[in-house]
């Protein structure tokens, strides 16, 4: 699974605003979903995950929502901070039998003070 070719869409927000980053996934059989954050020049880091038997999961300042009906995943960041500026990737994983994740194309989040 790969997400190449297109320039990344960008979301610009003000510090303190809430951010919502969206992702459409392709495989209705996917059972596991992850959001990664990639800062400039670094490898992606795990933020939060959710399994297909859940609709919502909350972490510290982040919430992931899963809508299986329309195959849509979103990441909500509360009180966005300049340190949240990064590229965010969603990824989906199958229920069994495969060894790779399928990544979305990524969204660049820019937070201005």
């Amino acid at each position, binding site marked *: *699974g*790969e*997400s*190449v*070719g*297109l*320039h*990344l869409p960008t979301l610009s927000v003000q510090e303190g605003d809430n951010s919502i980053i969206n992702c459409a996934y392709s495989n209705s059989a996917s*059972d*596991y979903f*992850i959001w*990664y954050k990639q800062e400039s*020049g*670094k*490898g*992606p*880091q*795990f933020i939060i*995950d959710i399994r297909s038997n859940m609709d919502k999961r909350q972490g510290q300042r982040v919430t992931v929502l899963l809508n299986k009906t329309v195959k849509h995943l979103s990441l909500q960041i509360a009180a966005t901070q300049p340190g949240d500026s990064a590229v965010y*990737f969603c*990824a989906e*994983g*199958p*229920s069994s039998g*495969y*060894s*790779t*994740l399928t*990544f*979305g*194309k*990524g969204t660049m989040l820019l937070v201005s003070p």
Partner: protein
Amino acid sequence: SQTIHQWPATLVQPVGSPLSLECTVEGTSNPNLYWYRQAAGRGLQLLFYSVGIGQISSEVPQNLSASRPQDRQFILSSKKLLLSDSGFYLCAWSLNINYGYTFGSGTRLTVV
């Protein structure tokens, strides 16, 4: 705890020169290992993955090859680099795909 090491962090190589990037994982056994490439401002392109020693799956036909000589070592190679091989190369590991990957810190390769 498990850690992943990737080196070098940056590399500038002339066109036609060979390449060897190394990735090692510590603190676990029989991980799944992955090589991704990321062009500037782009998404993640899966290049190779391995579910065991000597087992390599190639996702994209290209100028690169991968090898897994030891359980926790994954090497990305090229005999002759092309300008188009420039990019950010990421290694990752997982024990179970249903718990996601852990990525290394990446290697920035510039072919000149």
